[in-house]
């Protein structure tokens, strides 16, 4: 008990919702090192501070959990994980019990089983909803436990009618509090993982409910639509706003030309919805399935990801030119990426004074939509009003993004519907297709198959890596492979919360044709050190933003990639449930594996992109037409809501 006091100053969650974090020294046999405990008759030697739950899991002993989540601080509130610790009067929550001395634990005694069954029955006595009419049917942690503990009747009753109206105010996240079991994972996700803090426990005793500020509809508060809470809800209380019916209606309508673009992250994860291990990409199987579902064309969002790199990269070079050469003090630097709509809204609410730093380039989803209803429509002589654009995204915020009033530059709604990975999997299963069995087929022209750079957009650091591959080559005239083997820019990869990288431009080359109208030469960049940052998850984004505000090292950066979701898009709020660090790692592996086999791996070498600049956006990147179609503006929202 004489360990140093522990205070994780970085967390905003109240301590009641955080476990005891003891630094695990890992040293064998040293004082404060390891300790041997006994669980269900088995001995195990563990680093001091390991919880009973972690120790049991490493022994292969299952202890049920509900409020516990690998990504979140420990709340210890559902109590389903209680176990007997010899010598303790009461049962102990395994998730929140760090071992500091040799103990004997029993995980399934009569006392324990009775308590767990009671706890489940108590939850069910408040949980309104029928399993077969729920999107989490067969993927619900409460349902799984009810089965595991043999719930065959409602010992303490069961609600016969709903108590709460379903909150459908948000374009992204729907809240049905009738299914809420008050595990508070969403609260912890929002305040601790994302540091947004829209949700909180309200009231006391039996009146406790999860509420927004002043119990306002979710659509009216500072929710950033990231959907991370959806991914961590054990039941169906939180779900994405699902446009499946509208998409089916469009497909069924013979007058509509329905096209879908698919982003790389859903393709790397959708297999999980069909029972595959995380980390199996089904990109080309999906193309076939989508055609069988009735989509008229299947496009690769990577095309517009490459386009984004060109536009955003050019914008960066222009900002640098204006700031460094023309000494224009009004230029905002560092430039921030803007392809994550959750991040964009986070910045608009929490750091509105930094709106000028956001790249004006639209996200790949929105660029694609704008081009489909203009360039593609012209090319194929289809009236854009008859085109329905659907986007398969790993993201719930994309639903909000495509509904932003600014996003109608084609003269129509650029993207009509955003589908999440989960929703599309549902559509596919409705058609009787087992996705993993589909034959592989390619994407449709004119956008074709894109580059590896587009693929890695799905992982944190991916936009930065793609931008570096192109910007370095466009400026130096050298191949990136000369400085990074196989064009793998390892320093920006990985799940570290915040990354900082410097790259010195030793050589400069001639200005390539594409950029000739914009800059006379690169002389001003010779020998320059480009400073770059990467952050994923808005909690990390906040760290970086606060550093910038305080004039720290990130304020000297030139370009920073921000993603709202932990892990980047592959950990998006529209991805298959569950999520965990290891699942996200497997998805990242799939994404980098896909990148490495592409023949073309650099955005500026994508022939379809070059073709668009030749045929349609003739003034080149950041030209007049691309400004109209591919760039946008943002709103200084602030935190104050009426």
């Amino acid at each position, binding site marked *: 008990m004489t360990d140093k*006091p522990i205070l994780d100053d970085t967390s905003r969650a109240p301590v009641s919702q955080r476990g005891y974090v003891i630094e695990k020294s890992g040293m064998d046999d040293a004082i404060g090192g390891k300790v041997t405990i006994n669980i269900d008759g088995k001995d195990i030697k563990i680093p001091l501070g390991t919880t009973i739950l972690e120790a049991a899991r490493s022994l292969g002993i299952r202890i049920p959990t509900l409020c516990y989540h690998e990504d979140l601080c420990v709340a210890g509130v559902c109590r*389903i994980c209680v176990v007997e610790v010899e010598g303790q009067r009461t*049962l102990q929550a395994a998730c929140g*019990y760090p071992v500091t001395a040799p103990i004997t634990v029993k995980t399934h005694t009569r006392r324990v089983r009775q308590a767990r069954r*009671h706890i489940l029955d108590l939850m069910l006595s408040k949980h309104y909803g029928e399993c077969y009419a729920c999107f989490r049917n067969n993927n619900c942690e409460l349902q799984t436990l009810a089965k595991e503990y043999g719930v065959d009747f409602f010992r303490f009753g069961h609600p016969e009618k709903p108590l709460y109206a379903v909150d459908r105010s948000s374009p992204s996240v729907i809240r049905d509090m009738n299914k809420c079991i008050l595990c508070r994972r969403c609260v912890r996700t929002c305040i601790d993982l994302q540091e947004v803090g829209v949700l909180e426990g309200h009231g006391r*005793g*039996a009146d406790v409910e999860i509420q927004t500020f002043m119990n306002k509809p979710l659509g009216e508060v500072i929710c950033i639509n990231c959907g991370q809470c959806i991914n961590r809800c054990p039941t169906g209380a939180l779900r994405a706003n699902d446009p499946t019916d509208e998409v089916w209606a469009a497909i069924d309508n013979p007058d509509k030309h329905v096209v879908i673009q698919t982003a790389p992250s859903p393709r790397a994860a959708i297999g999980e919805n069909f029972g595959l291990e995380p980390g199996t990409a089904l990109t080309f199987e999906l193309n076939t399935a989508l055609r069988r579902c009735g989509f008229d064309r299947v496009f690769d969002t990577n095309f517009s990801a490459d386009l984004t790199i060109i536009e955003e990269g050019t914008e960066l070079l222009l900002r640098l030119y204006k700031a460094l050469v023309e000494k224009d003090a009004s230029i905002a630097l560092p430039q921030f990426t803007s392809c994550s709509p959750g991040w964009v809204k986070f910045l608009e609410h929490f750091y509105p004074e930094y709106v000028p730093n956001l790249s004006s380039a639209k996200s790949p989803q929105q660029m694609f939509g704008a081009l489909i209803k203009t360039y593609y429509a012209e090319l194929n002589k289809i009236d854009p009003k008859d085109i329905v654009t659907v986007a398969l995204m790993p993201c719930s915020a994309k639903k909000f993004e495509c509904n932003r009033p600014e996003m109608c530059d084609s003269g129509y709604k650029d993207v009509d519907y955003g589908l999440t990975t989960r929703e599309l999997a549902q559509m596919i299963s409705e058609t009787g297709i087992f996705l993993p069995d589909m034959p592989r087929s390619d994407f449709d022209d004119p956008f074709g198959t894109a580059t590896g750079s587009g693929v890695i957009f799905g992982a944190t650091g991916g936009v930065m890596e793609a931008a570096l591959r192109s910007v370095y080559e466009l400026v130096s005239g050298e191949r990136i492979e000369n400085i990074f083997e196989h064009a793998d820019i390892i320093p920006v990869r990985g799940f570290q919360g915040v990354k900082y990288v410097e790259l010195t431009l030793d050589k400069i080359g001639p200005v390539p044709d594409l950029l000739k109208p914009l800059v006379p030469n690169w002389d001003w960049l010779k020998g320059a050190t480009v400073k770059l940052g990467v952050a994923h998850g808005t909690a990390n984004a906040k760290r970086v933003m606060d550093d910038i505000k305080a004039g720290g090292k990130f304020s000297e950066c030139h370009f920073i990639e921000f993603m709202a979701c932990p892990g980047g898009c592959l950990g998006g709020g529209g991805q298959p449930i569950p999520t965990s660090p290891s699942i996200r790692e497997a998805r990242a592996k799939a994404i980098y594996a896909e990148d490495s086999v592409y023949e073309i791996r650099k955005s500026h070498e994508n022939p379809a992109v070059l073709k668009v600049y030749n045929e349609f956006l003739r003034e080149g990147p950041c030209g007049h037409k691309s400004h109209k179609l591919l760039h946008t503006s943002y709103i200084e929202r602030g935190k104050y809501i009426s």
Partner: protein
Amino acid sequence: MSPSHTGELTFSTVKPRVGLQAALDKGRAGIVAEVSGSGLKGRGGAGFPTGVKWNLAAATVADEKFVVCNADEGEPGTFKDRVILNRFADLVFEGMIIAGYAIGAQKGILYLRGEYSYLRKDLEKTLERMRTEGMLGERVLGRDDVSFDIEIFIGSGAYVCGEETALIESLEGQRGEPRNRPPFPVNTGYKGRPTVVNNVETLAWIPSIMARGADWFSSLGTDKSKGLKLFSVSGDVERPGVYEFPWGLTIADLMREVGGENAKAVQVGGASGYIVPARDFERHIAFEDVPTGGAVIVFGPHRDMLQVVSNFMEFFVGESCGQCTPCREGNVKLLEGLRLLEEGRCSTRQMRELCALGETMQQASKCGLGQSSPNAFLSIVKHYGDEIMGRTDVIV
């Protein structure tokens, strides 16, 4: 308000400053040894040995430590802390200074129940006086190595905020919700720093233990419950009020003193305590037999025990912080069971299930509130089965 009590309270016979001076003379280790030796156990209800608590806090290395006096006194049926604060606040504050010196804390906080905020003015005056008299502030009693000051924090009126970790959350400006334990406040308390939380009465006893010594204190009471204890007696008795007795007296003795000889039952320990029926009045009030934080509620022969317990359960349904499942939902189910009993519609089978649920709540709740809220329910089922089962009418 007329604080009634029987004669003089023993701890108040020690003059101000005397205990503090004695403590400073003993030195840090000496104080902890004296408190440990006295056998003093916490008077807030849980009965944790005070010396052990102080020793743990003293042994933890930290840049800052705190002493918190728990004056939340939210347990229905207790009012002894109010009387102490009203009349002997300086002794409580002295106890805090001594605790602070012993563990190495320079700051004390009095967490005062919202309903007691009318006491604040006088308490602030006492603090001010102690500052001018050199008992608080820099250089306590002229000692260069001792500085300590006390601040008053007004609670916001939730019973659960009396639970020490919820109290600390509340001090930190959060919802008053109990924390996971471990860590314990002596290690990671207010602002993440080692914090000793003690009840008002616990601290009030400290100066006299310092002045008269551990042996004096430990010679009183029983083997496992040392010293004297204050009781808040209320209900169907002739002379309600605050009483001082040594631990170990029988309930029958107590009833004779307070004029409650014909009581049908006594709830010892407030709403979260157990109901003791008249046939068990020979039991002893002590940690080893019938423990209590001091609340004694007496029920006369005319009382309907079902109503009594319904009353307590309503209290818990409203006062549970609502954080953990067994307590949040369990209390509701127990109350629903009582309603059914009132209407004569609760089957024996259902009753058995609810008793098992009560056990689950005692075992699996996150904090002491849920762990003790079924006590009253379980004790009436045990002792008054005949009285509560088989009713056909609502009894008014």
